[in-house]
């Protein structure tokens, strides 16, 4: 948040903290390189975790019958380079990962990558709306709280966000399900679609869209209804962080002289808020929304399980419950990659939006 760097920080510190002045091209390149290195590191971490699993990864992966067969065992050893030194094993692992081979899930007996491909759209179906909703609410409410700083509205928001931050996600899901399904009976129980529907042909992977494409509005509506509660819970979980962040970012901006200057110019309050305060305040918000998205993805692990939502989260949950390491690591790797890439995009956006980076 270089906008906020003021001179109370000793000057030389300020110099060091400032976003360096690179041209956008160099900035882009640097970010790309950093991301690539990070991703490499991410694979190293998952590889190390594989090594941590007690016993041979082979016994965990191969079936009983296959283990009896020396040929299969030899082939397996060769493919995963189990006889090679550790760094060679890592290279092999890397090679496998790069070619999309994340191993075979013990639970499903299928390649982890294929499993992920199946479950990702379902997760996105709730994660993306929840993220958008969180951003919308987060910005609106955060801005509201900042403008009403210290007053009743702000206090209420603050209390609400603290409550949101302190709520265990799995518990909230249960309570919501209990209330809306069990007590009130206004929501479907779980899953993506009532079972009497034949799922539409997968086009986008998003159930409601696919249903619409298949010309089944009633089915699309059913799909939407199923998504409501999980989206709600995920939103509640993410929005608290966002509101708090937006609030403090906006407070910081509201405190700036340039906002006073804009008001002194006689600009209407709305204009000041929407085109001056928001613009400056959103830069850090964009950055943090990358983080928030990652948090949201982690949230799906427990939430999807409770709502029987067949997404990556449920997959991860089941993998964890079954100690299905290839699947767990596949999910970790996947989410880490998504997160890293989202962050890269966010950083690039940041570079595009902030002229101080764009034009330096």
């Amino acid at each position, binding site marked *: 948040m270089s906008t906020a760097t003021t001179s109370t920080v000793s000057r030389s510190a300020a110099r060091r903290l400032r976003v360096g002045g690179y041209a956008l091209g160099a900035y882009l390149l640097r970010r790309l390189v950093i991301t690539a290195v990070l991703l490499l590191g991410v694979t190293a971490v998952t590889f190390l975790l594989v090594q941590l699993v007690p016993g041979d990864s082979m016994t965990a992966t191969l079936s009983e019958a296959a283990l009896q067969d020396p040929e299969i065992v030899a082939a397996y050893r060769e493919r995963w380079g189990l006889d090679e030194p550790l760094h060679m094993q890592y290279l092999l692992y890397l090679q496998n990962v790069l070619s999309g081979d994340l191993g075979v899930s013990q639970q499903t007996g299928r390649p982890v990558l294929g499993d992920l491909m199946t479950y990702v759209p379902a997760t996105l179906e709730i994660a993306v709306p929840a993220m958008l909703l969180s951003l919308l609410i987060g910005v609106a409410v955060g801005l509201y709280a900042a403008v009403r700083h210290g007053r009743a509205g702000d206090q209420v928001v603050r209390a609400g966000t603290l409550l949101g931050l302190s709520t265990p996600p799995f518990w909230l899901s249960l309570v919501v399900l209990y209330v809306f399904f069990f007590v009130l009976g206004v929501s479907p129980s*779980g899953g993506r679609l009532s079972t009497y529907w034949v799922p539409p042909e997968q086009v986008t992977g998003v159930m409601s869209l696919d249903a619409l494409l298949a010309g089944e509005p009633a089915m699309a509506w059913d799909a939407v209804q199923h998504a409501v509660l999980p989206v709600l819970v995920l939103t509640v979980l993410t929005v608290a962080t966002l509101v708090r962040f937006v609030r403090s970012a906006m407070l910081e901006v509201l405190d700036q002289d340039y906002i006073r200057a804009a008001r002194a110019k006689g600009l209407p309050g709305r204009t000041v808020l929407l085109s001056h305060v928001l613009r400056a305040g959103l830069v850090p918000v964009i950055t943090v929304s990358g983080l928030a998205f990652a948090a949201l993805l982690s949230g799906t692990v427990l939430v999807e399980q409770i709502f029987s939502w067949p997404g990556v989260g449920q997959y991860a949950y089941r993998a964890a419950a079954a100690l299905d390491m290839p699947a767990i690591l596949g999910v970790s790797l996947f989410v880490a990659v998504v997160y890293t890439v989202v962050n890269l995009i966010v950083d690039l956006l940041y570079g595009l939006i902030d002229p101080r980076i764009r034009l330096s």
Partner: protein
Amino acid sequence: GGSGSGGGAGGGDSDDGGATQGGTLTVSTSFVVNSLDPGQVYEATGALAVHAMYDTLVTFEGSDVTTPVPLLAESWEVNDDATEFTFTLTDGAVFSDGSPVTAEDVVFSINRLHNLQGSPAVTVEGLAASSPSEGVVVVTSEQSNPSVPTILAMPAAGILNAEATEAEGGTAAEDAASVDAATDFLNGASLGSGPYMLDSFDPASEIVLTANPEYWGETPGYQRIVISNVEAETQKLTMQRAEGDQIALDLSGRLLEDLPESVQVSASQDTFYFLTLHQDPAVSEITSNPDFVRALRASIDYDGLAALFGEDALPAAGMVPTAFPGALPEVEAQQQDLDAAADHLEASGITDPTVELMYPAITYRGVDLGTIATKIQFDAEQAGIEIVLDPQPIASFLEAQTAGEVPFRFSPQSLNYPVAASLVNNFAPGQASAERTGWTEDRASEEIIAAGEAVQSAPDSESQISAIQDWQHLLNEESPYVTLAYNSGVVAATETIANAEYSPAGWQVDLRAVAPQ
């Protein structure tokens, strides 16, 4: 919830919807399915699906598991010492691709099951099939075995289209275990002659079956059956506000409690829960001590434990669940006797024993095994035995169990095939399960070995039943198994469904028979 126009049978508009009576049937069950290849199928849900897709020579109807009825075989004969079974195939049975079911297909399928050496192969151990003439199949057993028709009614013995299977890399040859490559294909499509075909299989979430338009028998009841992987608690939610035709398979005990009146429930106590104590002193000095086993056996609050499962469970009397002939009468149910436990413990010479109890961290038939294990822990504590719980993921548990080095474990068990004698094949000293428990023949008494043999050599089922009861009494005396309780398999179905009966035969509910009412 908008249980709108799309609900019920309306959901399944399809081109040839006229052929079947119903649209979509949803079967909810919490499952782990490794394979839908008959030669590999082992788990209950796999059996459920395979049974619907593959015809067997004979089968069972409804909840009855005593009388096999014809399916692909229109009749069969058995020789006197029950070692040779001759099946005559019906005419007109065709696979889903339209080709006729021949004796070669049957021979291929049974031999492949045997030679694949997969998990279900144990049931056909010692059996071999051949076809002396067209339309006739002879199955021989190395030992006298009156249960062969029952074994051949099991889903694993489903008949595959031999030609098509071979085309996908399948083989029935001796080396099938390493050469056969059809399993992957069979996990994505079916090659049977049953009323349903495999539409899609997602090992984590669902199995979708569709009606076989070419089915040679009666038209299947539904156009589409979705077997979805749903936790027990969600199954309950679904049944509470069921829309359309729904079956739930894991509702038992408490979960059945406040279901709507309209839900039909069918149950049968076909599972038992038991503890196993390793008999090899090298593995554990404690668990191999017979007095310790007795102390533990006396410490368990069988009634309280059964209560945890809900109304449909019973405290165990012997190993055979009440669903099967040969079960001990209810009055013989075991009782907690803490004084006796104390005496036994003293006799064992072990003071303040601590043992680790390994069990799979799963919910089985709606009951969290952790709950039961915690109860066991608590009861044992009353007798001065400390138990440390060691929940393991199912895969690790099975692996450890197979390795045969677990001192003390707890798990549910159902029968390989619905004949009590199958337990002897598995649990008698020296048999597969007993071996993994270190209960070798030389660690067992003459008496119990003889009792086991008596079961196996019983010429008819009557004498077999009394033999098996004797065997169970002896087990309660000196075996490393502590049978705790029997629990039911339950089928809960919406009122719109006919023939939703629980079958202890292994497939839980006969999907070929269920139909809209």
